């Protein structure tokens, strides 16, 4: 019995491509829009408190691949020290000061690590897509040759 795997390869390629597109769009949204904006706010010299507040509101939500609840050394520091401290300031409407820059830098570093991991994952799924498409084309050619 001849097995026709073209559909299998085609669907596999489509699914991996969809994953790559979703992960890539989230990753590059972070890399091209969120991170530069947060960096500009952290680097800005005037109106530190307001700029830091906006930067923190951007960075408070973790990047998809760099959740603050993950069990790694940096996330423990962020989860147990940075977030409770910065949230407490926001809750009590206290001004942010230049001393808090180091905390925001830690958050943006974490976000960048997450988006780098997202980019690598996107590349992985793209490679799977290319492999899937290669097998699909090979199988298609084989099926046509067999008539």
């Amino acid at each position, binding site marked *: 019995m001849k097995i026709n795997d073209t559909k299998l390869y085609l669907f596999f390629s489509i699914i991996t491509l969809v994953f790559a597109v979703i992960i890539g769009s989230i990753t590059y949204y972070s890399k091209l829009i969120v991170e530069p904006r947060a960096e500009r706010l952290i680097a800005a010299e005037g109106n530190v408190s307001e700029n830091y507040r906006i930067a923190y509101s951007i960075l408070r939500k973790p990047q998809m691949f760099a959740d603050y609840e993950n069990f790694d050394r940096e996330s423990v520091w962020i989860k147990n020290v940075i977030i409770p401290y910065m*949230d407490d300031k926001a809750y009590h409407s206290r001004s942010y000061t230049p001393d808090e820059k180091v905390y925001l830098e830690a958050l943006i570093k974490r976000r960048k690590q997450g988006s780098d991991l997202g980019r690598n994952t996107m590349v992985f799924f793209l490679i799977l897509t290319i492999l899937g498409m290669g097998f699909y084309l090979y199988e298609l050619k084989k099926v046509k040759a067999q008539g």
Partner: protein
Amino acid sequence: MKRFLVPILLALVIAGCSQAPDKLYHPKAIFKAEIKDNDVYYTFYVKGIVYNNNSERVFRDIKGEVRISNGKNLTVLPFEIPPLLPFQKYTLSVEKTGKENEMKPLLDLFRIDVDRLITGGYMNFSEEMDVPSGNLDFTITNYTTENIFDIIKKGRTDEN
């Protein structure tokens, strides 16, 4: 049936996302004996840690009770907790004071030697003891929540 399924599932998801702290971590008990007006008063303290493991919700107006039992209810200790921010810990301490006859069930539960506790001065403390999880019931009876992102962006609603 189907038209109820989505709202029920949605309600469960929302409830799950904003679940209030439901555990008292590392509960410890201490007894104090104190002589006042020629009477011995015993105070029972329970201390433990309440942890908000929710990443986004701030819990406010938290009220609840710590129930100590040994099969039957021995005492109920009500408490209030100040606002608990995401990932924040709070050391809860509740207490009950009374004379020996009133406190006897608790003293018996923790096998406190009353004679030993009251000797040596007008105020004495027992050692810190772990409270077995089977003897302690921690319940939150009331709370309100607010999203931390709203607070960071706009400030607290009770300030506006």
